[in-house]
């Protein structure tokens, strides 16, 4: 059950107060309705956890998903994503820990070396404190994969070079004509391609905003409140988290930018023109209720400036075009364009809002079957629709939001050289349970038909051959 929004609660109480006072004035007996006191989050309470250290909840903040290890550890307990033991704890000689550390020597992913000569090569993603992967997070299956491997890496393919060329073109033009959607069969490498594009643009001094699991915007896991000013449902917590992450990753670049126009913020007055974007973001992070407005303002400011190109990367792109799991007071499902965060993303994806320099890149995902590729998006991209027929309904608003999207098709199968490189990475990292010989490679490549996810997960990691 979703909690009642704070404004609704206040409204009820004020109504009751008014009615009571009216009753007293007119001499009628006062309304004796129940006033319910909902439990409030008590800040500053330290809950003892089994790890022996306490997690202190800061007031008003939701905590980053991939932030400190302490927070991450307790969060992981709940989310049950695979977490391997640290290599240093494997002291038994059977684990051959001394031979594990220096095995995987890969070149670093750097924009300068990304040319056709480097296709079918694996490059390691850099790992720092403010890395977009750490801060924004990763799709769940890729998170588990990078936990099994010793370091996050990926194989450069021809599509990678295509997308990078398109991003280079987009850095000069705007996002109006550079709205890409990465599509392909399940498990072919769409999310990884998006990660490569993200890393590339981050290293090229773009301002990046990445939504690794856009499904969390629409599956009713984050709080929502009705905003009578915009007549939409805002998602303050998610907006607040997005602002925090944007600030952490792009802080130094946002320092250089200043607002062109004053920004009106409800109940806090206006933020004058000329303030740094960092300060504007901090206005939103101080109070969750203001976060949606501030986020929209920050993005529009970023859209107008031309100092840095902006990348808006969205995984699970099809989820923002599906009917959400949120319910309105009539218990009907809310459309995505009636929620603040999906609406914002839809507006940038459709070109209604644009970045003067930059691009919008989305990646489809078929993992979650409750948010399948909708008909409107499938038709706009030229993909075979999942549901069709003469009686299939199309929502005109979503059709408008899907206009002008261009498709980037990822090939269904890895080429043999790409698969060889991938196999090599896993073999050198000692992550394959079987003996890594050419028989295993050929067998698993044939069984998976070249599909990357099947090759690794159902092939190399699921095999019972020794």
């Amino acid at each position, binding site marked *: 059950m979703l909690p009642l929004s704070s404004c609704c609660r206040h409204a009820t109480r004020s109504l009751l107060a008014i009615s009571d006072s009216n009753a007293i004035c007119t001499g009628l007996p006062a309304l004796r309705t129940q006033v319910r006191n909902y439990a409030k989050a008590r800040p500053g309470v330290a809950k003892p956890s089994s790890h022996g250290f306490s997690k202190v909840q800061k007031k008003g903040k939701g905590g980053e998903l991939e932030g400190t290890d302490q927070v991450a550890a307790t969060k992981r307990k709940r989310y049950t994503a695979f977490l391997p033991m640290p290599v240093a704890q494997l002291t038994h000689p059977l684990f051959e820990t001394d031979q594990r550390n220096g095995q995987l020597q890969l070149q670093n992913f750097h924009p300068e070396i990304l040319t056709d000569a480097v*296709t*079918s*090569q694996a490059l390691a993603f850099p790992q720092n404190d403010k890395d977009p992967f750490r801060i924004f997070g990763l799709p769940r299956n890729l998170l588990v994969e990078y936990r099994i491997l010793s370091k996050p890496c990926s194989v450069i393919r021809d599509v990678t070079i295509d997308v990078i060329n398109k991003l280079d073109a987009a850095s000069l033009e705007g996002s109006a004509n550079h709205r890409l959607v990465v599509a392909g069969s399940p498990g072919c490498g769409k999310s990884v391609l998006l990660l490569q594009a993200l890393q590339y643009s981050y290293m090229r001094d773009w301002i990046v905003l990445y939504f690794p699991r856009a499904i969390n915007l629409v599956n009713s896991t984050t709080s929502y409140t009705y905003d009578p000013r915009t007549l939409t449902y805002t998602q303050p917590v998610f907006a607040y988290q997005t602002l925090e992450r944007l600030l952490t990753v792009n802080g130094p670049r946002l320092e250089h930018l200043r607002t062109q126009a004053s920004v009106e913020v409800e109940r806090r007055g206006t933020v004058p023109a000329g303030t740094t974007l960092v300060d504007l973001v901090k206005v939103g992070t101080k109070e969750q209720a203001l976060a949606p407005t501030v986020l929209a303002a920050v993005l529009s400011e970023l859209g107008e400036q031309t100092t840095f190109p902006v990348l808006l990367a969205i995984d699970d792109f099809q989820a923002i075009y599906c009917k959400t799991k949120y319910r309105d007071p009539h218990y009907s499902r809310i459309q995505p364009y009636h929620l603040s965060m999906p609406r914002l993303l839809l507006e940038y994806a459709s070109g209604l809002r644009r970045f003067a320099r930059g691009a919008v890149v989305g990646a489809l995902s078929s993992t979650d079957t409750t948010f399948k590729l909708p008909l409107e998006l499938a038709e706009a991209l030229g993909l075979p629709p999942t549901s069709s027929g003469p009686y299939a309904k199309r929502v005109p608003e979503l059709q408008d939001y899907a206009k002008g999207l261009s498709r980037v098709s990822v090939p269904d199968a890895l*080429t*043999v*050289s790409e698969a*060889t*490189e991938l*196999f*090599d990475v896993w*073999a*050198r990292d000692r992550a394959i349970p079987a003996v*890594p010989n*050419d*028989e295993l*490679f*050929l*067998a698993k*490549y*044939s*069984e*998976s*038909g070249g*599909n990357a996810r*099947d090759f690794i997960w*159902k*092939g190399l990691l*699921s*095999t*019972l*051959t020794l």
Partner: protein
Amino acid sequence: MATVGLKAFELFASRLSCRPPRLHVLALRSLTTTAATTPPPPNSRFVPPASLETMDEAQLEGDGFDVDRRSRRPRPESRRPVPPSPAFYTARSLYYDTLVQLQSALSLSRRALRAQHLLPLPPFALRALPPAQPAWANKAEMSLILQAPLTARMYKRVVMLLRELDQYERIARVADATELEDAITDITKGFESKKGIQARDTRIRAREVKERGPLDRYGRSYTVGRRKTSAARVWMIEVQKPKDSTSEPVANTTSILSSSNATTPPPPTSTVLINSVPISNYFPLPADREGVLRPLKLAGLLGAFNVFALVRGGGTSGQSGAIALAVAKGCVAHVPEVEPILKKAKLLRRDPRMVERKKTGLAKARKRYTWVKR
């Protein structure tokens, strides 16, 4: 020693007449005639003691081969007729005579082979002999040959002896002992019939066709496999090697798979399509996928053939098993040398297990209803 044995055997073999009926007809005739003076034909061997007195010494010595020296006694002057064979009173004399003759032939040929150190052969040598291709007469024809109604047991006795003789003949053939081989052939060819020869030729032709594994004009094999209620038809064709080695973009990293630092072309890979769908889409379970490709893996033919299968009936693992059997047969069709490997791995055997029927009085095939004490 060997020559003595051979010579004796040859003589003995020449004694074995190819037309026993005539001999015994004459013998019978001789028995039925009242003329006491007609001597028994020179080829008869057994002379009852009572008749010995009637025969001359010269006649006895003229045989040249004495079966029973001890029975040489002065012949009485009685005129009792001599049964032509010791088995005369069995009413199946030719049959028993033939058995005795075949057993003697066996022991003689055994002796001859042993003298040439060809017996006893070690098991690997026995297995390496050319296969037996018998053309024996069937029971009815053998009854005609041996002039006696044969039961199955009687027929089997004859055939067992003939088989052993045939084995010795094959050993002699392989060892280039032509005289012995011809001698045994002389004996055994009397027991072959036209029908048997025809049947043998058909069998040989069928086996050749089966061994060759017909490939059609495009070089595709077509094989069928079945498992439970699934049936699969599989076409396998060789992967075309790219003529231009520089066509594919080559990885220039040193990897575990590449043998040298030089840029090598990527290896060919097998594509498997099942009902026109790639195997990764058709079989989501890794076990089913591995089962389909197991014959290629064991035979070392991964990347050598592309597989196209049409499968129908049953469930996922049944269909996977059917395709695996058909793929194994296809491998044998293309590369007959891998047959022993796949046979050892039991991949060429059609799994005979089917769903067991439900029985009356039981809840399912084996499950019983709950036992109630009262």
